[in-house]
């Protein structure tokens, strides 16, 4: 098992980008695909896209992000790739429905993005689980799922919705 303890750079750093480009040709760049949730973990067991088992043990002050480089050796590089976030896009059929959907998303601690009259819900689990939770709103027609949404624009903000407790 490969034990990695540091973030040694970022794939967008000019010199590192050049090295990674060369190493790609040699087939020695390995990627760790992480969800946004797992990106928060400082310590975890993961597997690269080439099957290498990795014990990731970062300092508490470290923070992973998309493109973080964890190993840069002549014969091997390992970098982190953020999995494309999946969204459920909701529309409301009335102001009352919009209020209820917004309240409900907050109460469920879902991460959302506001987009005009649409509410984008970041999926941190199976889409069906979210639809089941929303079934009362959908059945009454207070909210509707907008299918086949376009990819979110760059710079999406993840908002933790406050809730009443």
């Amino acid at each position, binding site marked *: 098992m490969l*034990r990695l*303890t540091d973030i040694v750079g970022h794939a967008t750093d000019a010199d590192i980008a050049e090295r990674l480009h060369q190493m790609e040709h040699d087939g020695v760049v390995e990627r760790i695909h992480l969800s946004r949730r797992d990106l928060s*973990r400082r310590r975890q*067991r993961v597997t690269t896209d080439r099957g290498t088992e990795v014990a990731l043990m970062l300092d508490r002050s470290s923070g992973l992000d998309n493109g973080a480089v964890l190993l840069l*050796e002549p014969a091997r590089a390992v970098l982190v790739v953020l999995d494309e976030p999946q969204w459920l896009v909701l529309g409301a059929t009335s102001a009352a429905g919009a209020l209820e959907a917004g309240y409900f998303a907050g109460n469920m601690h879902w991460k959302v993005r506001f987009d005009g009259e649409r509410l984008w819900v970041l999926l941190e*689990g*199976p889409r069906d689980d979210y639809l*089941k939770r929303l079934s009362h709103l959908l059945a009454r027609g207070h909210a509707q799922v907008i299918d086949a949404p376009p990819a979110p624009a760059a710079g999406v903000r993840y908002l933790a919705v406050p809730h009443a407790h």
Partner: protein
Amino acid sequence: MSAQLNPHARPRGAARVGIGGPVGSGKTALLEQLIPRFMARGTDIAVITNDLVTAEDAERVRRSGLIAPERVLAVETGACPHTAIREDPTLNLAAADELDRAYPGLELILIESGGDNLASSFSLDLVDYWLFVIDVAGGDDIPRKRGLGVLQCDLLVINKVDLAPHVRVNLDRMVSEAHEVRLGRPTLLTNCAHGDGVDAVVERIAQEVLFDR
């Protein structure tokens, strides 16, 4: 040899593992079973407990004689226990940092949450891995209620399995539904009163965050 490729490379600071779940499910009992097992395998360990307005659980663990009392810190969460492990884990982060400073060789901090309902969950800013403990006496419908804790935890522990026949719980169905709602992520069965099944919990934690064996 590169430090990064050193097979003995160690992180700075201990792994942090959360133990959450409803009141009475057996979180503290699990803690009391885990401590001696980790100590027996040579893991340098400390504990943080969360209580509403007392240090009841911390005192229970300190009095147990299982671990040096100074290695057990208490966080009083007030009326909203899940806040201290999710929305604002500042107090728990401070307690964990304090333990890391006090015990430089510390390898594992177990953070037991204050009792809460099925919706509690841990911030991954606070812990690296977390368990959610439910028990059969709470009803075999708990998994299919799809509470946040059951769905999102890294390891679901179903405790008090010995009581299943006495509370008319279909344990097989409960486990099956847990696997279904958790999409196959791990679920383990325990009887923390006697320690049954706890070795598997220790192995799972060691495998996922200690990397020492």
